[in-house]
């Protein structure tokens, strides 16, 4: 009886581990897509309406999906709190917190970090160039992430479960 319960636990644990890995593969393109559309919204706000970052970011946070919205909400909050943070500091700080719970890879994060260095620092034309560049880079990353997702999501889901079964059989 104990053996059966133990075996089941091993299979479930291993299945969950596989699912966790597969989820990060599946989540990355979703987040990247959200960030790309967020940057496009931000570009529109900045180029056409010259909306200050605080308002523009709050607006973006309302319009993009979870989880990316939480990042933009955080940056807007830091800027709105008037604690003397520059846009760069607020952006980097929020990105640091966001990256802990995100499926984004180091490459994706470094694109966003690079954008943060220039955000709000120049005229509209220049801002638009930076935002477009970052969006293009994220699109390239997304193409790769989608490819990796189609390959790996199912693989890791099965591998988790089957790996668990193999362990259980070996132990029996």
């Amino acid at each position: 009886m104990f053996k059966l319960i133990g075996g089941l636990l091993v299979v479930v644990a291993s299945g969950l581990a596989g699912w966790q890995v597969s989820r990060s593969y599946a989540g990355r393109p979703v987040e990247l897509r959200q960030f790309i559309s967020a940057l496009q919204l931000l570009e529109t706000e900045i180029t056409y309406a010259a909306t200050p970052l605080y308002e523009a970011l709050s607006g973006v946070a309302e319009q993009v999906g979870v989880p990316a919205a939480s990042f933009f909400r955080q940056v807007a909050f830091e800027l709105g709190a008037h604690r003397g943070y520059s846009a760069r500091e607020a952006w980097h700080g929020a990105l640091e917190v966001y990256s802990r719970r995100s499926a984004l890879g180091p490459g994706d994060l470094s694109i966003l970090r690079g954008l943060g260095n220039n955000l709000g620092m120049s005229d509209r034309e220049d801002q638009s160039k930076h935002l477009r560049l970052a969006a293009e880079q994220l699109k390239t990353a997304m193409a790769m992430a989608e490819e990796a997702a189609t390959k790996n999501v199912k693989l890791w889901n099965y591998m988790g479960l089957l790996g668990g079964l193999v362990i259980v059989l070996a132990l029996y």
Partner: protein
Amino acid sequence: MNKYLITKPVLHASAEPIQCPAGGWRQIAAVLPSNLADLIARVTPRYLNGLEEIRLRRDRPLMLGLGGSDYFLRQDGTPVSEPDGAYLVDAADLEKVLHNISGSSLYALEEELKNGYVTLPGGHRVGLTGKAVLENGRVKTLKYLSGLNIRVCREIKGAANGLIKHLIEHQAQNVYHTVIFSPPRCGKTTLLRDLVRQVSNGLPGMQFAGRTVGVVDERSEIAGCHRGVPQMDVGVRTDVLDGCPKAQGMMMLLRAMSPDVIVTDEIGSMEDIHALEEVFNAGVRVIVTIHASSLRELANRPALKYLLQLNVVERFVLLGRSRGVGTVEKIFSSADLPGLGVKMCLS
């Protein structure tokens, strides 16, 4: 000349005290980096209440305009008249001020950078200098900003108390076409702002009902608009067109807002005068200010000479500093124009 009426120095004999020294400082402290705000806050309140401007120049001493004189500020917050030992403003200080002013969004200040100044909440103004970037021979923007001048806005309610009765035409229940002129820094705009407020609100004591006033505030000085909302009391019947070129703005107000009085600051170009002509012809009263130290000087400028020749303006008010900023030195009527024989305007 001394037979012309000279009223009391209105800014100093104002009915109500100066409005916003403490509040004004708080609003300005909000855009300063904390080290600078703390330093300036150490200045004794007696001086701080007379704060007129804060000048930040990169790698040069921090300077305060206090009660009409310049002072440098030591590390411990003591104002001194010699720059030795004064706090030196560095690039990071300037950058932080710009971040705070723009909400970390320099691109939102493009128009302001082009004009060289930004209006803060509360109507305070920040003048900017740096390197101009040109496009087709015109300033496109400023970069490498290296000098900031934060001018504290002082709204003085009652500044026009001594003057207003001379500008009201009781029969028509309206104001005379008025030109206020003076050399710079004599309180033209402060006086104009209070005139706008009083004409707009009406003067029950003088049986004068308020009139709709349209203000074209090209340099955001009269109403001190921040994002289009007047930060100063310009009266209940006042519409403000902020940041709009004067000539265009007057036409827009005339067509759209049906004002009884149109007010604008510092006219001078022929285009402005032609727009004024339209306003005169529409039966709308006009109050404007002009930079000039005498009527003769005014008449020497071609555009203004043309304005005088139209012979529409009924009151010319000369401001000076003989008894403090904002002293109304003389009030001329249209019949007092130079070379036309002198007549007492008011007795």
